[in-house]
């Protein structure tokens, strides 16, 4: 890899993360609003739930993205005995 990738990667990750979180939060919010309007009689909890869901998903994705180099993927190897 070339020179500034690692440092820029960090920034890029953050950009992605934030963007993704924002999108997910907004989406959750929207879905919440929609659901609250449609199904849940304009209560607050689907909205917060939806936004929370979206935020949480975004957070989780962000975390996962930041953790990605540290994640160890295991493989099962079948040995023919």
């Amino acid at each position, binding site marked *: 890899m070339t020179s500034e990738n690692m440092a820029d990667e960090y920034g890029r990750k953050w950009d992605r993360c934030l963007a993704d979180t924002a999108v997910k939060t907004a989406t959750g919010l929207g879905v919440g609003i929609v659901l609250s309007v449609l199904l849940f009689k304009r209560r607050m909890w689907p909205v917060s739930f939806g936004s929370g869901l979206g935020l949480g998903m975004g957070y989780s994705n962000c*975390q996962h993205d*930041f953790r990605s180099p540290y994640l160890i993927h295991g493989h099962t190897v079948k040995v023919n005995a």
Partner: protein
Amino acid sequence: MLGVCLRGAHATVRKNCVRSPLTPLQSYRCYSTSRSSGASRVVALGLVTVGGGVGGTLLYSKWDPKFRAAVEKNVPYSDWLLGLALGPAPEDARLPVRKQVELNQPPSMLDKPKTDPKAKSQKSVKEAAEASGPESSLVPPPPAQSIQDECKECHKHADVSETAAVASAEPLKERPVDEVTARLVQQDQEEEKLLASLSSRLEDSLASSAKATLQAIGAQEVALQAVTQHTRKLKDAMEAEAPSDEKSTQWKELEAALAERTAAVKDATTTLSKANEALEGLKSVINQAKGQKVAAARPLILAAEENLHQMVVDLDKVVSKVRSAESEAKVVSQYTELVNEAKQQFQREVSSLTPEIQANWKGLTGKLSVDDLNALIAHAHRRIDQLNRELAEQRVREQIHIEAALEQQKVEDHKVLDAAVTTAMGHVKEEARLNLEQKLAELREVMEAEMRTQLRRQAAAHTDHVRDVLKVQEQELRAEAEQVLNSKILDQETRYRQLTQEQLDNFTLDMNAAYARLKGIEEAIDSHAVAEETAREAHQLWLSVEALSYALKSAGADSPSMPLEDAAEAVRASCHDDFCSALASALPQESLQRGVYSEASLRARFNALRSLARRVALIDESRNSLYQYFLSYLQAALLFEDQQEAPPSQLSGADLDPFKLLSYASYCLEHGDLELAAKLVNQLRGEARRVVEDWLTEARLTLETRQVVSLLSAYANAAGLGTTQAP
């Protein structure tokens, strides 16, 4: 509770403390009491042990000398002690005796084989000498003589060898062969001389005695002849009645014969005496020869003795003959004397009666007168009467006279018989002795012949043995001589080779020296050329390295330098050894293809990276949730460290904190030490490390390239320096 415990602890401690000084005291007291008796006991025991050890060592060393020697060797003053206690070591007395015995043995043993071959060699040498034959006039007895001489020599040599064996202190050496032969020849010569002298003397005396005897015999014969002739003549003269002139001639002849006889008899006696002298001389010579006991002369002696005896016998015979003749002559002469006396008497009577008538009355028959005749007849009658009376008396006294005569004859016969018997006995004895001697000589010869055969056999066996021994010796000597010869030849050869080699070496040295100088000159020239070449190359290298380093400098602020491929290629081209080419090929590929960043750009980048690293300082494998991210961000915001801090020479554990590391690194970077900065940055862990990974690789690359380039330039400088010749 605590106080109780403490009190309890104190109590126990106190108890322990109290007890602990007491018990050693108690035990000490016990030990002291037991020790005072125990000490003496121990001391006594120790003394007994030591004494026992010393005594045991003494006894055992007395019994075993090897042990004694070992002890003396290992323990310093033990030899003095042991010598004091036991006396000197016994082996020394034994060894010299043994050595002496050995010394005495080999000389005697050496003696025997030496004397045997010596005697044998001398015998063989003598045999050879005998075989080669010094000129000996005595041909018949040489074998016997040689054998006898050998025997004598053997005896002599046995004596000599015995004396040599006895006097073993003298070094034995074989008498030289020529000395031996000389001695043998000398001995032979002496014997021959002796023998020759003996034989010559014997011969001389024999010859002289023979001559004398012959002379004597001849003289005796002559005397005999003369005597017989004389007696015959006398007889004839007495008996024959011849006429007067014949008678006178007869008488003259008689006188001549008498004279002849006397002369012959005298001659005979002188010659007889001479012969006797000669015989005596011969006898003495024979006795002398016998006394000298030269064996070979014995037959000569024997012959001489026989001759002597023969001569003596002949002489005696002749002498007896002469004596008998003389006795006869004496008888006849007595008869003639008587007759003459009677005649004389008658003549006297007649003359007394008839004085006128002369002697020769037979012729005067006519001249006589009657008176004269009557007187004559009366005288004749008277004479006849007288004679008759005498005859009667004689007849009467005949017997007595005869007896007396017989006695006389007997006595004379006895005497003669005795003389004859003695002479005959002497002769017989002599003959017997001679026979005995002859027989002895024969026997001796037979014995000698037998001995000769035996000795011949022994000699044959001896020659065989000697031949074998000689063969063996010859082989040994030949081998030895060959060896000596070979070694000498080898020496000579080696010496010759050495000399030739030396010459060659000298020549080669000179040639080499000249060649070396030529070579040196050539080499100097070549080395000059080579040096120039290397200088040129070094210069080229230096130039290329300079180009490379210049290419390095071509890095911009944020862009890498130009690709170092060409410069590296140039360097590789101008490289002429492995080190340089290894270095040239050690340039990292990235630098060759892309180029490297400069230090300044890295520095600038680092500053940007620093804040980032600060921000993710807390993140690592275990802490990488977003919350941790938030916390690390908070930390970065809240923590203040020095912008630049000088790094210590040794990093401790506390220095591995990322913030500290970063400040150290920026300090290093600010001071131009990229290497140390990279090292420090290398110590970052976790996410911070991941973030600065790229920077680190870039820094590494730069550092590598720079290192290679600096090495190359150093090498080029060194090469250049090396090629320049110091004035």
